[in-house]
């Protein structure tokens, strides 16, 4: 039923992986269960060369998710118009099945800090983020998915829970959500709440995509566990468990395996995608 070729307007209800250029030949020859690929938008904003050539070939064969990491949707400043235009151009020629970005900020003034920085959940933040999402959706002419962050700390000034904050954004802007269950596990561990409880409270009807990924383990000043969102390792069993927990509630969703640092060979990443494929079976 689902059209996974270019121009499809939905991601397949199947595993995808975060695309890495070193996997190009492998993913074209032996994708295994991988039916779609997620690309980081900013890596394809040069003028040509190998990144564009690979993307032209990949989009003939796979559904694409364009995942922005530089829009700074939670930034106190107005959105970067030049960057929005670049995103619009990229979306226009790659025709992705999905565009997503993060509930975070990364730009301050003219500086780009190259990290997804946290936001207080206040009415002021809500107004600003909602306006920015409206602007993105109007510019791109499509719905966007907003991803829940991984948190290492909280803001005393927050007056909303993260799940209520996301639900309100969905109602106000019509955006969808990208549920990252690795981020849920990290934030719940770091801030001391139940990850299942978080998913129970999450506006699951709006979820258009689920992420799993690996993280590092550390401790804070008091010896409490502090998980770091590194995308540098295999997905741990408790995160696979959370994926199953979420899928049991949402039904099948596109599931993406993220591995961005210390990227393994294709067979290792494909094995993770196989595990995601198995997780999708009981939910079907």
């Amino acid at each position, binding site marked *: 039923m689902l059209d996974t070729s270019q121009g499809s307007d939905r991601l397949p209800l199947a595993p995808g992986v975060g695309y890495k250029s070193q996997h190009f030949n492998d993913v074209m020859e032996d994708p295994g269960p991988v039916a779609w690929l997620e690309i980081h938008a900013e890596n394809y904003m040069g*003028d040509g*060369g190998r990144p564009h*050539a690979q993307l032209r070939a990949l989009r003939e064969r796979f559904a694409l998710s364009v995942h922005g990491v530089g829009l700074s949707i939670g930034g106190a400043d107005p959105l970067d118009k030049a960057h929005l235009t670049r995103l619009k151009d990229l979306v226009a020629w790659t025709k992705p099945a999905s565009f997503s970005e993060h509930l975070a900020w990364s730009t*301050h003034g003219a500086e780009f800090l190259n990290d997804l*920085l946290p936001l207080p959940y206040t009415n002021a933040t809500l107004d600003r983020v909602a306006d920015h999402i409206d602007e993105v959706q109007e510019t791109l002419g499509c719905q966007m998915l907003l991803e829940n962050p991984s948190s290492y700390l909280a803001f005393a000034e927050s007056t909303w829970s993260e799940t209520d904050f996301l639900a309100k954004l969905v109602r106000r802007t019509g955006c969808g959500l990208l549920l990252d269950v690795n981020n849920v596990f990290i934030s719940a561990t770091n801030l001391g709440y139940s990850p299942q409880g978080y998913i129970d409270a999450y506006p699951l009807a709006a979820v258009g995509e689920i992420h799993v990924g690996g993280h590092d383990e550390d401790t804070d000043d008091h010896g409490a566990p502090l998980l770091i969102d590194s995308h540098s390792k295999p997905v741990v069993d408790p995160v696979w468990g959370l994926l199953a927990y979420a899928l049991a509630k949402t039904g099948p969703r596109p599931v993406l395996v993220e591995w961005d640092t210390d990227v393994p060979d294709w067979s290792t990443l494909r094995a993770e995608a196989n595990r995601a494929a198995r997780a999708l079976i009981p939910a079907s």
Partner: protein
Amino acid sequence: MTVTQSGFRNALIDADLAVPEGLKDGRGAPAGARFAVYRNNVVLSLTEALSTGFPLVHKLLGSQTFDRLAGVFVRAHPPRSPLMMHYGAALPDFLDSFEPLAHIGYLSDCARLDLAIRRSYHAGDAEPLDPLRLQQDPRAVMALQISPSPATQVLCSNWPLFDIWRFNMIPDAPKPEAVPQDVMVTRADFDPQPHLLPSGAALWLDALTAGHSLGAASEKAAATHPTFDLASTLTLALSTAALTENTTKEIQ
């Protein structure tokens, strides 16, 4: 209690500043070292981007010295754009006035070469000049309007820049000789390659970029560089896909 993004940013960049008040752990205690996760992410991710983007400088300095240089540079020159492919454009000039490494005089030109290779990698695609276009009436050939492809980058160095690159990046390459060298970076397919330019070729390429015809550019090069040899320069340029005809449309 409100934590502004300015306050958050300042404490990220300057580790001597206190963690902003109003940040807490899950039990309501001050966030303390948890803030360091963001500090580390910012500095380490930018250092990693520089290390990937400046492989020759990294090779020359070694990881330890490179990381210390990067630690100073990323605080003085954070990215000005979310396009990390462009990050580090300020590094060569920064190195020119960075006293701790001033004894490595050629380091900034090596950074310029690393940048040129990265720019070539991401440059727009262009149809290479067809060598058959040069096999016509000589007057027509000299009137051709050709220019370096977008992926062609030219560097004029007071150092043996090509030799330094080759000695450090190619196994068993000969040691550099103490001569100034001009270097051209081109991309025949997708992987940029540095090439040593013969005398006058850099000026010739500049003249083509400025819009001079093949004949006019060659006259300019020969006027300043008596040993300029059009035949060998053209052979190099054609074999490395360095040129494109100005009427050719860019692909994509």
